């Protein structure tokens, strides 16, 4: 059996012929396995969806209950048989509910890791490396310049800035699913116990995280109806990054744009977006984590997708590991 007999790229996404299912397809299909709730992986309109219970809930929160006709919850670590193909979901450490999908048949094992990170994160279960024949890795930060610093250190930079600029509203741009809750959780872990204000777009997901026992402390909607703009002086408001340029942002006292993203490693990126305090916080793997994970899986072949494939393919070549870019459509650069 060739690896491509088990999984291969199709226009709709990564397809398993014997199992007759897709993983994270870009368009509606009959049967989809979804790694996690980010919109470039989880789309609505599939006939049946298999994903972790959390990912199914998150999809329902984002797309409404009718996002799929049939849905099945995958229990982490429990194999499921699909038309003779053994499928196992294992934690990916990316966001709440995120999973790698292990696909096995006739002694061939392929791991589709979805998005993953290796840094500890209190808001989701840690990544579990699995030995496999083929490892499919993301490469969002697949260049040796991406070296994510300690996340607690980054959060302390935010807290330091609050002391330096006690009159300015610190607007922290963070992706609505995962990053926002991680930022809040990190603030709490570092002793920040004031109310944290959140943009309306984060409310449902943050409540969902809290319902799952993730401690986010007191959150309050960042609306002005309740008072005047100076009420937010020196406070933290978490919002989707797109909100910086909305009229919404203008109502706060001397807003300071802070942006929590792996892209903030590159100074020009921060400058272009008018970010004053870049926080290098990523839910993806940095270069060192990507290469270390590839070694840990002991895979003899690596398929690279979702980002800067060429550098990681080059690294595999230098380390005598067969590698190829997997050109899948539908994944935009996950900017936030």
């Amino acid at each position, binding site marked *: 059996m060739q690896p491509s007999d088990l999984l291969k790229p199709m226009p709709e996404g990564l397809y398993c012929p014997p199992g007759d299912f897709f993983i994270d397809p870009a368009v509606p299909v009959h049967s989809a396995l979804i790694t996690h709730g980010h919109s470039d992986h989880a789309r609505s309109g599939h006939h049946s969806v298999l994903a972790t219970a959390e990912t199914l809930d998150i999809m329902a929160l984002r797309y409404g209950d009718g996002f799929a006709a049939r849905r099945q919850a995958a229990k982490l670590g429990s194999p499921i048989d699909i038309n003779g193909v053994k499928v196992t979901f294992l934690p990916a450490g990316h966001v709440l509910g995120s999973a790698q999908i292990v696909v096995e048949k006739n002694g061939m094992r392929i791991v589709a890791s979805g998005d993953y990170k290796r840094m500890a994160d209190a808001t989701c279960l840690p990544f579990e490396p699995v030995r496999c024949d083929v490892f499919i890795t993301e490469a969002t930060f697949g260049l040796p*310049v*991406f*070296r994510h*610093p300690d996340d607690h250190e980054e959060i302390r930079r935010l807290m330091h800035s609050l002391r330096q600029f006690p009159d300015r509203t610190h607007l922290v741009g963070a992706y609505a699913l995962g990053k926002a809750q991680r930022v809040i959780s990190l603030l709490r872990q570092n002793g920040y116990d004031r109310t944290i204000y959140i943009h309306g777009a984060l409310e449902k997901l943050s409540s969902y995280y809290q319902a799952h026992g993730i401690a986010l402390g007191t959150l309050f909607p960042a609306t002005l109806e309740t008072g005047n703009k100076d009420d937010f002086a020196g406070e933290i408001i978490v919002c989707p990054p797109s909100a910086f340029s909305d009229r919404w942002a203008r109502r706060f006292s001397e807003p300071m744009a802070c942006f929590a993203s792996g892209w903030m490693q590159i*100074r020009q990126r921060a400058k272009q977006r008018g970010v*004053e305090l870049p926080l290098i916080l990523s839910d993806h793997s940095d270069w060192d984590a990507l290469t270390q994970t590839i070694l840990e899986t002991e895979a003899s072949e690596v398929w690279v997708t979702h980002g800067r494939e060429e550098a990681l393919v080059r690294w595999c070549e230098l380390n005598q590991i067969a590698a190829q870019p997997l050109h899948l459509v539908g994944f935009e650069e996950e900017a936030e």
Partner: protein
Amino acid sequence: MKAFSELIDRLVLTPARNGKLALLTDYFAQTPDPDRGYALAALTEGLDIPAVKPALLRALALERIDEVLFAYSYDYVGDLAETISLIWPDTGRTEEDGSLSLSAFVETLSATSKLDAPKVFASLLDQLDPSERYAAIKLVTGGLRIGVSARLTRQALANLGGKDIIELEELWHGLEMPYRDLFAWLENKADKPQNNALALFRPVMLANAVQTGDLDGLDPDDYRLEWKWDGIRVQVSSEGGVRKLYSRSGDDISGAFLDLLDAVDFEAVIDGELLVGRPGEYVGTFNELQQRLNRKTVSQKLQKQYPAFVRCYDLLMLDGTDTRSLPLTERRKRLETLIQTLDTERFDLSPQLDFDDWAQVDDMRKQPEHPVIEGVMLKHKDSPYIPGRKKGPWFKWKRDPHTIDAVLMYAQRGHGKRSSYYSDYTFGVWQDSEGRRELVPVGKAYFGFSDAELKLIDKYVRENTVDRFGPVRAVTATTEKGLVFEVAFEGIARSKRHKSGVAMRFPRISRLRWDKPANEADTLETLESMIETAPVD
């Protein structure tokens, strides 16, 4: 090094002056000696450490990482220092080690020979994290380029200690790295450092431009009138055998004017205009003077061709006595006496002119008696010499209302033989609103300068680029740093098509004002006030 690299990173991204000041003041308050002293030096005078060339840094990086991976990375990041700082392998550095301090970094490098510098520098990089490595690379390649002037840094120190910046500027040239005594004084732990250094810079008194109505109600008898000469304002400072020539912002420009300093045989501090030529015979144009500016040293030939002299305006110290609190008339008397003892080829007196009323002054400033005069100065007879630009005691009134000082904002590559030069310039003037100063673009110009000047501007643009859009580069243009152009034009009118609301006719660069601080360029208000006086046909 962590606190310093964080400071550098944040300063670059903080646009507001107050924000920069807060960051600097906080850094100086939180950082121990001698680290903060080295940081202060790095931000102002520069550190005395061996330089490492970018090509060499690249070679050091390529010894450590695959060339192809490096190329992908550099291509993506676009900045060599940043690429190297990020890609450098983390060898042998554990979290527990704590990071290398800025002082250890500086002291290690300054004790290293030029030859060993690359090897030693590489071993230092091994001990730093990516953001610290970036700061380290910036330090050894020269030029932090973070849009922070030495003056702003001194302002932050003044804020730290609750002192007046003028007090700091007076002390400044006598202080030495790592400035322990300065910080001790600022933190009220010690007395003010004794300024034992001689021939220091004294902050300069500046004039305000005459605006409509300013002179109404002022008595002409209270004012003294002088020509405003078109050179550069300087200060000759001589004490105990130490002789210095300073620009009006306090930069030491002695090296380029040793011919002038050789003739200094007095104990005094004189405020005047630096010109080229021979007093009483010939005064050279600003262009001629420019042959001698922006140079570290000047050849004998240039010194002969463009001899420098000072036309004296004022006297700040004489034989160890501070004269600044005396009224102008008293200072002038002493200056007149002093002048008689000076080398007549190098010093003369700026004459005081007779006038009866303001209308006559208006005529005089429009038709000065010499081409190298750019207008007149009006000084209150009783005015003490007060550093800064207080409104009232001194006025300047320029000859040609059709010139403004504007700041270069964007540069675009030219066409034809200029296609490899940034030769088309968009310039702006200041607009103050709600306590913020912003530059508003008011026009474009692409002629009026010589080929030699074009080369200098092009170099400036390349070294001070902050952003790129296709063929256009945005250059540093803040209240702290920017290149000032004197722009001449034929007329000015209101315009709805321009964001600024004004449009100039035939603007051209009439002069490069390397000497002028960006913050002192004109305001949009001044431009608007010219609309009536300069009708567009």
